[in-house]
């Protein structure tokens, strides 16, 4: 018996959701911060998979390479330099659980009630069209992103050399 494409899509969705949500719980509840950072990377990978399932393959690849591959790895390695500190504000746990449930309900109900549905099963996204729009139409945000990334590089070098201002 072969699985239909819809069934495969649903299975992939469930698996990726499991990875994303499971890793998110580990990221919040892990005993050591370094495991939290690694679990955040797993969540990022799960979210990238869900993006790809939506049809945004290029964005998913970018998320996986830049966010998970570089940023979260940087975070995980940086955390190793810090001594582990004690954990949680235990008196705030009931309030935090309540607010998390309310946030979940508010987002789900408000967005679901909008009744927006997708017209096609996957998004038609051409990389050339996106690149052209980015350079022609959205050059200013692109410039800001480039400047901010260059600033981070300079800041990273400065911090690594131990400079004081």
């Amino acid at each position, binding site marked *: 018996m072969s699985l239909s494409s819809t069934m495969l899509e649903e299975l992939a969705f469930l698996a990726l959701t499991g990875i994303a949500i499971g890793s998110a719980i580990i990221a919040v509840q892990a005993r050591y911060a370094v495991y939290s950072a690694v679990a955040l990377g797993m969540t990022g990978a799960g979210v990238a998979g869900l993006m790809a399932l939506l049809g945004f393959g290029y964005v998913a690849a970018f998320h996986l390479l830049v966010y998970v591959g570089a940023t979260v790895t940087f975070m995980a390695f940086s955390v190793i330099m810090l*001594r582990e500190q004690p954990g949680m504000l235990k008196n705030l746990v009931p309030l935090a659980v309540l607010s998390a449930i309310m946030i979940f309900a508010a987002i789900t109900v408000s967005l679901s009630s909008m009744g927006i549905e997708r017209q096609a099963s996957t998004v038609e996204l051409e990389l050339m069209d996106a690149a052209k729009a980015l350079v022609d139409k959205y050059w200013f945000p692109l410039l800001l992103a480039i400047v901010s990334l260059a600033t981070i590089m300079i800041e990273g070098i400065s911090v690594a050399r131990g400079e004081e201002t």
Partner: protein
Amino acid sequence: MIPVTWYYVVAALLFAIGSYGAVVHKNAVRILVSLELMFNAELLLLLAVASTIEAVQGALLAILVIALTSSEIGVAIPIIVLLFRLTGTVDVTRVSRLRG
């Protein structure tokens, strides 16, 4: 075709878990990780909504947001490392040097 509502539910769940973590933790790194969980949720939500309205613009916005969030972590982690060097702690309840 998977209904877009399912993506909303996953994003809302991720955002809720992140908000829980951001409220209960004292460790600055844990708080940052929780905020990043919330960022992942809003990115998924952005693309889920974009898939119903304007895919190309949504994808471009998502790419710019990912780049800027990478910058944000690049700023936040060195600040936490410097904070640790100065005070010997990353416990946000004990850091009061910026208070007037």
